[in-house]
């Protein structure tokens, strides 16, 4: 049922000409996808998809639309070739999936070879009951270092391309735009932002036991500040979190992560070896995962903020032909 909804929203995105509608639909699409992922037992993934796909992506897309205009031109030619390419690709995949193990069958090879060992020994070896976190931060911790670096790369890329809100001028009497004059919003925002930040910390530290972790926490943390920016204006937000600080956060997280690996080297282990971080290997694992997740959280929060500041700091150009 959910899958049908998913298809329907994807088709609606194809049909919609108004980009604003496209963005809203893609937010809906992401939420349905997140729900479907929960049904498939991937709670961590669902949480990330909800916060990233439906949250951050939508904010970024809307920010872009504000700067670029929201009407799509009608296509000038009939799209036969693209249709063929798309169908050929899907056809290739259909050909491939005709032979794959039946959905949900526990005897499929992926449930037999590598994964069972994670499920059996992860708790013992790392002391972390959420196996996804254990695999993410420890067994395949190097992938996660790479992932953090990808985010870092995107962060410095956006800063390079758009600058980070340095163009935002402080308005008269420090009024930085936003919706400050709306009393209701201001009160609600003041009430909710502390809880958003608290919730981020909960997600960060509860990631060992339930769904959550550095990435989701970083996104929520950034969302709190983004909320603040929307209500109180960019200038005020940048007084609270100066661009230079954001830049430091962006780099600091990756540096912490990589440094954990280096300490493993210095203590005589391989790179990213957490066993050597403490006399008790399980405790060492725990410590390693803690710092690594902290690094991820810092970089993700920093990059999300940097990107948002970069978009918010751009002015709509008056001379743009529309």
């Amino acid at each position, binding site marked *: 049922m959910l899958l049908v909804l998913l298809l329907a929203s994807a088709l609606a995105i194809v049909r919609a000409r108004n980009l604003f509608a496209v963005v809203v639909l893609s937010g809906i699409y992401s939420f349905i996808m997140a729900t479907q992922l929960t049904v498939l037992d991937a709670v961590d993934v669902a949480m990330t998809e909800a916060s990233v796909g439906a949250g951050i992506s939508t904010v970024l897309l809307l920010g872009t639309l504000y700067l670029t205009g929201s009407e799509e031109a009608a296509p000038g030619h009939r799209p036969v070739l693209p249709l063929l390419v798309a169908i050929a690709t899907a056809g290739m995949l259909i*050909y491939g*999936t005709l032979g794959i193990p039946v959905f949900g069958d526990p005897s499929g*090879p992926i449930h037999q*070879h*590598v994964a069972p060992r994670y499920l059996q020994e992860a708790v013992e070896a790392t002391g972390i009951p959420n196996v996804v976190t254990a695999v993410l931060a420890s067994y395949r*911790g190097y992938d996660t270092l790479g992932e953090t670096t990808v985010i870092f790369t995107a962060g410095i890329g956006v800063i390079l391309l758009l600058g980070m809100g340095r163009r935002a001028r402080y308005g008269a009497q420090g009024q930085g735009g936003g919706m400050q004059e709306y009393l209701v919003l201001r009160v609600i925002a003041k009430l909710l932002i502390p809880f958003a930040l608290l919730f981020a910390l909960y997600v960060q530290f509860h990631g060992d036991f339930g769904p959550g972790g550095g990435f989701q926490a970083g996104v929520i943390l950034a969302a709190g500040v983004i909320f603040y920016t929307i209500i109180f204006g960019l200038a005020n937000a940048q007084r609270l979190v100066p661009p230079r600080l954001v830049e430091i956060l962006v780099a600091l997280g990756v540096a912490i992560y*990589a440094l954990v690996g280096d300490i493993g080297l210095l203590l005589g282990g391989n790179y990213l070896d957490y066993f050597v971080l403490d006399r008790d290997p399980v405790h060492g694992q725990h410590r390693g995962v803690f710092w690594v997740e902290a690094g991820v959280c810092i970089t993700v929060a920093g990059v999300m903020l940097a990107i948002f500041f970069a978009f918010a700091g751009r002015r709509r150009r008056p001379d743009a032909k529309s």
Partner: protein
Amino acid sequence: MIAQHFPALQVVVPLMAAPLCVLLRNARLAWAMALAVSWAMVFVAGSLLARVLQEGVISYALGSWEPPWGIEYRIDPLNAFVLVLVSLVGALVISYSRESVDHEVRREQHYLFYAAYLLCLAGLLGIAITGDAFNVFVFLEISSLSTYVLIALGRDRRALTASYQYLIMGTIGATFIVIGVGLLYLMTGTLNMHDLSQRLPAVEHTRPVLAALAFLTVGISLKLALFPLHLWLPNAYAFAPSMVTAFLAATATKVAVYLLLRFFFTVFGAPLVLGEMPLPEILLALSLAAMFAMSIVATFQDDVKRMLAYSSVAQIGYITLGVSTGTAAGLTGTVVHLFNHGITKGALFLLLGCMAMGMKRVTLQHMRGIGRIMPVTTFGVVIGGLGLIGVPLTAGFVSKWYLVLGALERGWWWVAVLILASSLLAVVYVWRIVEAAYFKPPGEQVARLREAPLSMLVPAWAMIAATVYFGVDTRFTAGVAARVAELLLGGFR
């Protein structure tokens, strides 16, 4: 003791240096750090290659989780060779870059620029060194994202659209690779390449594995700009900052070729890829089409950077041609050409960067008579051009020699003839450059130029010298490549 950790350091040191650049926030320090790190990586790669040639495969378990549960770095002669190429080019390009970047990129962006370069380097090295199929994707994205950024920093506004186009095509390619890896994982339960190669034969002829092969081939072909999936390349090369073009031309597509070889021969194995699928035939047809169509297009370009970009697509045709022959000589040609074309094209783009210091775009009209104004630079371009054609005593000759041998070994004499014929096309476009540079009177714009500074000429000429050196002394390149070819084919044919 530290040498034992070289595999990890090879990637992690540039990766660590990038955030440090951002924290330091100083253009000079960032450049100095990038320089030091790049040369240190050459040392690391060199010693890894030496060790691999002596002791055989090196395996390094990251996080001390033994493979296939953790991620493994697995180094054999092939990727050690690629590591040397990437880090060597990186080091030479960064030595060259200071003046050029000063000229082409806004000063307050420099520290971020060098951070992006370091990430690109780390990403490319990471793809080459890893033994884990999913880790490939992660590092592929590091290198790709930083590449998009670096390209977009070009001065012309078309750099932006070029970067966007590359972003779309690159992401499609990367997603195809993820689908391919996912199908392989579905059928075997493992992501480790070595483990995959052990477990694949049992399920070799199932449809998902064949579909995985198709997806991986298409995905990687997008990345290596195999004709007709090359559309992103000419604009990206033409409008990126000079040093970025040189670095990418010499490394990025070459690492993608490495990835293709790795999946074809290590993961799937030569018998499946070359023996049973129609893949060699398709690859041969596309390679020949690339060699001819792209060389012809190159001869009609006026923008010299663009001309050489099309020539790159054509040269990639030679590289994949070697794969399609499926013979030891052909594969040797592939691997040698990987290296030789990398340094030749890198050198050419560096020299064009010298010319670009004085003019906005390096076109044939603009560079009239430049041979008299910038003699050292122009002479380098000529030698590099000879290398592209494959004249004896240049590196290009060595690789084409092996390719022709490979084609003849299969009895494809007509392919050998076509290789020689397409080299004649290269003569045409190189001649157009020579004609404009030496036989036309200098225009006003050229007259105002000066010879490029030594800090740029020395690295560029070092690479030109390398193309000549490796054209004469083939012990290193062809020696390693022959071993690699032997290893990849594993007794097939």
